């Protein structure tokens, strides 16, 4: 029972990684389907649609990032993996923002990316705007990432 803290922390790590990862995988997949349709018509647009396809990929990376920070701090990667239950729960909570915001924002972003790809298909010169519209969605993943990161760093210093 003494080590339950690290269990909670690792559950948080797992959530942050796989939820954000699922979001990105779904998102990149959807955008990829749309991108393939464009390439079938005009292979020269590959570079352009690839960028749009990759936009929903970042959430998964944000999830990975938070997970990595937590893993290094709780001592799972070598070191003393002994943290209190309260601290473990705090780490768990820190992981939640990026886990949920990552999952849903990546899927929402993929819808914008698919629409953006259709912009590129019809008017390749307007690609900049398509990227910006798609990147708007990411703001909320970034905000969640920020809170997750700040919390992880904050929890490290707490004496509980």
């Amino acid at each position, binding site marked *: 029972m003494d080590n339950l803290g690290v269990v909670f922390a690792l559950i948080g790590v797992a959530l942050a990684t796989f939820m954000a990862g699922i979001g990105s995988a779904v998102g990149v997949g959807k955008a990829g389907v749309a991108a393939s349709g464009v390439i079938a018509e005009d292979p020269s647009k590959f570079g352009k649609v690839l960028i749009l396809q990759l936009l929903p990929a970042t959430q998964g990376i944000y999830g990975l990032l938070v997970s990595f920070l937590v893993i290094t701090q709780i001592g799972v990667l070598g070191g003393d993996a002994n943290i209190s239950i309260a601290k473990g729960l705090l780490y768990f909570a820190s992981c939640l923002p990026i886990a949920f915001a990552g999952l849903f924002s990546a899927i929402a972003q993929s819808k914008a990316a698919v629409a953006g790809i259709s912009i590129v298909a019809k008017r390749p010169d307007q690609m900049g705007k398509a990227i910006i519209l798609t990147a708007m969605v990411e703001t909320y993943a*970034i905000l969640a990432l920020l809170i997750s990161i700040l919390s992880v760093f904050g929890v490290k210093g707490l004496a509980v």
Partner: protein
Amino acid sequence: MAVCKMKHITVFGLRKYRKSIMEHLQRCGVVEIRNTELEDSVFHKQDTSQQSNIFHKNSALAMKAAEIIDNNCDNKKSLLSSFEGRKVISSEDYYKFIDEEEEIMRIGYRVLSLNKSISEEKSEISRLQLQVDSLEPWRNLDISMRFTGTKTTSAFIGILPENQQKEDISNNLSEFFKEKNVEIKGYDIEIISSSKEQTCVFIICLNKDKEYMEAALRFLGFAKPMSPSKATPKERITELKKRIRVYEDNIENYIKEIKGYIGISNALKFMSDYYTMRAEKYEALELLSNSKRTFILTGYISEKDALNLEKDLVNDYYAAVEIEEPNITEDIPVYLKNNSFSSPVENVLETYSLPNKNEIDPTNFMAIFYYIFFGLMFSDAGYGIIMFLVCGILLLKYKNMEDSMKKNLKMFCFCGISTTIWGFLLGSFFGDAVNVIASTFFNKDITLKPLWFSPLDDPMKMLMFSFLLGIIHLFTGLALNAYQLIKHKKYIDVFYDVISWYMIVLGGVLTLLSTSMFADMVGFSKPLPSIVGKISGACAVIGIIVVLFTSGRTSKSPVKRLLKGAYGVYGITSWLSDILSYSRLLALGLSTGVIAQVFNKIGTMFGGGIIGFILFAIIFIIGHSINIGINALGAYVHTNRLQFVEFFNKFYEGGGVKFNPFKINTKYYKIKEDIKNG
């Protein structure tokens, strides 16, 4: 800060010089020709769509032929070829190609027809091959497949479903006959071949049993073969194969002939360019107004080119040229001219929108912040150096590349420098590579000390720094707005729309800093003195009051005014979210560094030693390549966003139309100005 000053140009010329004047304009590429709206009994328009269509068609034809030759000769384009740009054609080649126009185009047609024959004969081959395949099971039948029997016998040649043995078939048949109460004995079954799906059989019976046999076989699913041949299957197969070989030989010859034209490929590409050029000239002619002996051309030209062109046209072609200030109501095309530090980001500005005629060119300010933000988000010295080197080398190696590509590479070159600087300031070189390599392979403890501080140690400080940069960025935008207002002599608006917001935001921030909670959060040892807080608080309140009473000043009704004013004050929330948006500088910066560390960590999991080092090197290279790709994309996208959404929101609308001069738009060759194109 330079939107080039555009002038309106009108050229009045003699009809007999029209061609040479148009060619001169096309070579110089400094005039955007607009439609001259003058049509009456004297002046009329000329319809040239027929000519330009012919040229476009020829151009496409030559391009296709050149492509066919290149494809057949394995002229693979290298990955870097997109950097090469167009070749400059020597005047010698230019005239030589034009002299040989007919011959070149004859070869072009020949190549196209050869290509057509190849595809036709290929489809013929596959048709024949299909026949061969369907005959293959009958190879052992040594009579014609049309054989129906002798005087006294009837033969059935055909296919039964599934793989059946001789016994199976005869059993099935006799069962059928038994059911029908007939007794037929005199028949013979020969299995020609069998596979999993079908059995090819030859069945012979007496003439009198023919009907019963037919019925029985139909019941068993007997089918006659498709298109039976007169000759025996074996002979037929040989014949078909012979025909296939003839076609194959033909195709080989065609390809050989196409390959023989490899030297003409470049000439064809040139012809494609040449016809495009001529087609565009004819298209431009449609915009002119012509009388019997004269013509009028109108358009736009930038101020700096105007004098030179006027001189050329007047002296060489006896034209009258009128250059005047454009009417402010016209939509004047926008032509940006910036120094080499900021011109690279013109492309980024273009993806948003070019400045409209009332606005200044924000490129210079954008460039500074662009490089800073990109560097801060990418923030790794190692990545920055790689980016700088790659772009730099490409720029040096391919001097001839297209302008927009050059601009992009230059932009990333500058971004690379900025990234390197931030990387060293924040202590990141391929993540923590120095430390990891030293401790894993050399058992030493070396760390690359950040010149300033490491955001991983003090993320709060970095966050505050990001907000500070954000406020500076936004205030710059606001200042540019003030500059534009002053330029249009709306002095009072500067106070209402700009200074009021400076007071609100600065006052607000300083007030917050004078409270102990915020000062603590930011990392100040003690809050600002309370007197500062009081003064700045008062400033903020004054600002709010100004906004409340002035942002609705366009409305007449006082109620509406006040409501609009209240909505203006509500704009504080948008300022808040704008400033918070700059937190992405921290988040993306951290994500580059942390992911780099992840890969370093994975690399060291195999321990030291030679094998460990090799695995480390592989993971290092792959991992950091992925990280560079993803984070460079992220930094690019989010830097653009900060410019487009937060910065431009404060002063910039855009909507200008790009200056699009009448020039030589070629695909393969650059045509030097001293060549007189015909």
